[in-house]
């Protein structure tokens, strides 16, 4: 291999790396939570949820607080969705809550996440 050919190849490789020097997002990312992660809300929140920048099949969505798992209603099921929101079935006691979710992204990646919020009287 001549020096010129080698330099051309190396320049091409460097150009290729620079062209893609931003993260390539193959699957949906978590864009936000309701209530916001780490926030404090007064009284029972009207809804609890997450949104993504692409369709995601949520397969598990648990809200756990001082009294254990919170009963939820109004969930959209396992259909692919960008907005997943549920309502607490009853009032929520004051305390710290953690939301844990799992889902299947379009590219087959299994994803999971969690966030926390605090309920005040």
């Amino acid at each position: 291999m001549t020096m010129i050919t080698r330099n051309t190849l190396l320049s091409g490789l460097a150009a290729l790396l620079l062209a893609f020097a931003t993260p390539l997002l193959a699957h949906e990312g978590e864009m936000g939570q309701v209530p916001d992660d780490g926030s404090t809300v007064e009284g029972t929140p009207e809804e609890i949820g997450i949104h993504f920048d692409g369709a995601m099949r949520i397969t598990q969505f648990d809200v756990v607080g001082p009294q254990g798992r919170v009963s939820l209603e109004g969930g959209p099921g396992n259909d692919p969705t960008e907005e997943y929101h549920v309502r607490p079935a009853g009032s929520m006691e004051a305390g710290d809550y953690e939301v844990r979710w799992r889902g299947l992204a379009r590219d087959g990646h299994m994803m999971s996440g969690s966030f926390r919020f605090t309920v005040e009287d």
Partner: protein
Amino acid sequence: MAWLSALAGVDAWMVAMILAAAGFHAGALLAAGAVLFRLAFPDLPDPARRAASRTGAIAAWVAIALVLVQWPLQAGYLGGGNVSAAFDPAMLGMVFDGAQGTRLVLAVSGLLLVQAILLDVRRLPGVGYGLSLGGVLLVMLAFVQVGHTAGEPRVLLGGLLILHLLAAAFWIASLWPLYRLAGQPAADPAAARILERFGRVALLVVGLLVLAGAVLAVLLAGGVTPLFTTAWGQFLLAKVLLVALLLLLAALNKWRLVPAFSRGETTAPRRLRRSIAVEGVLVAAVLGMTAILTGITSPNG
């Protein structure tokens, strides 16, 4: 440290998924690599040829069993990590319905076809190799169905991963037949010739493996900094360290131990075998690290 936080979230179910993934990767690469090794070295002595083919076939069946085990493990994970979700028809259907299902079908059909290399094809020369090469292609396609390499630009990312995997498969599958060859008395001409030729082929193969892996890593991470700051990057660096150790051993084999074997030094076969065995242990560690890397972390941070 980002990698420690990532490990803190791992439960028993995820450990089972990581082990199944590592086993599947090992089996599928060994099976595909056995075909490539046989093709690259058609003049292998009988025992080494049989060792390569038999290992490939056993590895294919192990990989088939593990990819089938991965299906309920994935369904169970999606349901919160429990046995009832693992056998819930709706959850199993959801997993099969998407990219994971395509991966499963491609992997199983590829691994069945790969075993055509075991056929005695004296009457139909080339048919066994043709079928098994088709199997290798299907297995490689299975690997690019799921994950970040399935994103855009898909042809570039998938192509790089396939190149990386083909080189890794060839290397992994060569270890056992080379270990057998190194057991021959030192200076055995057939064994020495193949060991020396392997050293030359391996230079190209390892170059491809490292180049494709490095470009892929930078493309997926979006630069060099995330390799140090994210859990994915840190696990990847650990993998790179293990691969660097492997390369050192490979260099030792090529430039010290194989020449000693060819010169007929009496301790050479034992030292070469020991070095290849350590390579095998390191390969297992690399595969384990890859399963952790792809199973519990993501280049997105």
